[in-house]
């Protein structure tokens, strides 16, 4: 039989597909390896990150349990503005309920949803609120995030600290412009309005469901 020097079309196709296949296998293996190698470290970083956020709203003195372990996953809760699952961290001090840390969403921000973390004491008092994610206009509505707030001594978001429905009647939970209690920056009232409403609703939800949330045994 004579030797075939010119590769046939079928031969070429087979050769290139085998080479491409080998490349895909090799790089998939590389990715899988790197993923497996980095997974524990990434998980640890994510936990540190989660804890860092919680520490911003909840001082260390208010809990002695492992917050990341003592969590509840709520199904869609309209009271919290969540149309998906959300997480509740349950802070306990010497086994006694101390505070709840809730995830909440303000669906009516100036440009989309504003996600936040709210810590509420078992007594019904807000410990702290932090915005975790938002798309508000830079330099205008983004003062709800204390990192962007020009008022460094008393950032806007700290107005919620220590408030409760006992101290401030429910109808007062509005910006001053609407006849309520809260300051807002000129030119950007849609954003604070949305945040105040969401915090109010979440606080109400926490008050009404506190015992149920602390008692639930569905902790992971």
């Amino acid at each position, binding site marked *: 039989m004579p030797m075939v020097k010119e590769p046939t079309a079928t031969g070429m196709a087979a050769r290139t597909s085998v080479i491409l296949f080998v490349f*895909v296998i090799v*790089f998939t293996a590389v990715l899988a390896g790197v993923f497996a190698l980095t997974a524990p470290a990434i998980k640890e970083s994510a936990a540190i990150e989660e804890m860092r956020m919680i520490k911003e709203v909840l001082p260390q003195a208010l809990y002695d349990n492992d917050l990341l372990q003592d969590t509840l996953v709520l199904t869609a809760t309209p009271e919290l503005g969540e149309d998906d699952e959300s997480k509740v961290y349950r802070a306990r001090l010497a086994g006694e309920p101390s505070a709840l840390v809730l995830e909440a969403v303000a669906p009516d921000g100036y440009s989309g949803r504003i996600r936040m973390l709210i810590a509420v004491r078992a007594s019904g008092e807000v410990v702290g609120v932090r915005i975790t994610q938002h798309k508000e206009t830079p330099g205008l509505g983004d003062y709800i995030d204390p990192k962007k707030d020009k008022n460094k001594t008393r950032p806007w978001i700290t107005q919620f600290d220590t408030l409760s429905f006992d101290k401030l009647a429910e109808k007062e939970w509005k910006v001053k412009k609407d006849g309520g209690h809260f300051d807002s920056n000129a030119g950007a009232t849609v954003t604070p309005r949305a945040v105040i409403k969401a915090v109010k609703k979440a606080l109400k939800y926490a008050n009404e469901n506190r015992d149920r949330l602390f008692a639930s045994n569905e902790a992971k």
Partner: protein
Amino acid sequence: MITWAEFKEIFVNGTWRQNSSLVQMLGMCPLLAMTTSLVNGAMLSLATIFVMGSSGFVVALLRNFIPYEIRIPVFILVAAALVTVVDLGMNAYMHSMYNILGIFIPLIITNCIVLARIEAFAAKNGPLQSLFDGAFMGVGMLWTLSLLGAIREFIGAGTFLSGIEAVIPDLHHYQVLPADYPGFLVSILPPGAFIVLACMVAAKNWYEAKAAERANRKPPEPLATAGCH
């Protein structure tokens, strides 16, 4: 190996003569989105330097095993895999850095400058040359995007270095214009990027033409672009 002349040629090409943003006009999407401030533009470029250097190096190493007919899928495979490796590695071992650069890394794979340099350079040159080509293309992008970001930020918000706190906590941004400067939103929005970039391209071309006139020679022909944005 790499000679000094080659190194110099690659450096000048990457940072000035074939500058990715001013001459090749590549990677316009991330450029529009990210140069709203100096810090954002610089951060995106830093992440790009990383990915382009390593993808150039790897493709150049493998270039003799890649058949011409399937080079594009293989290049994309390599670049996407490397972006993911960088993303995972940074997330795991440089988490504070990842918090700052993290959102920019997935953007890089949408930046066609990566593929363009692999195709135009790394597929035909040695690993070291390709590593430097990728890195210096990124350096060219670094100064261009930083300048573009600084101009847009200054006109749009009247500030300098806003967001630097997230990168270097001890520094803080400067309010260059008075605090009651109302801002100029167009500059922050995508059209502002095109307008400022066009001015920068014009300035570069003007400078080149002047230099050519002084040297009494013809101004350089604009280089062909790869045709993707």
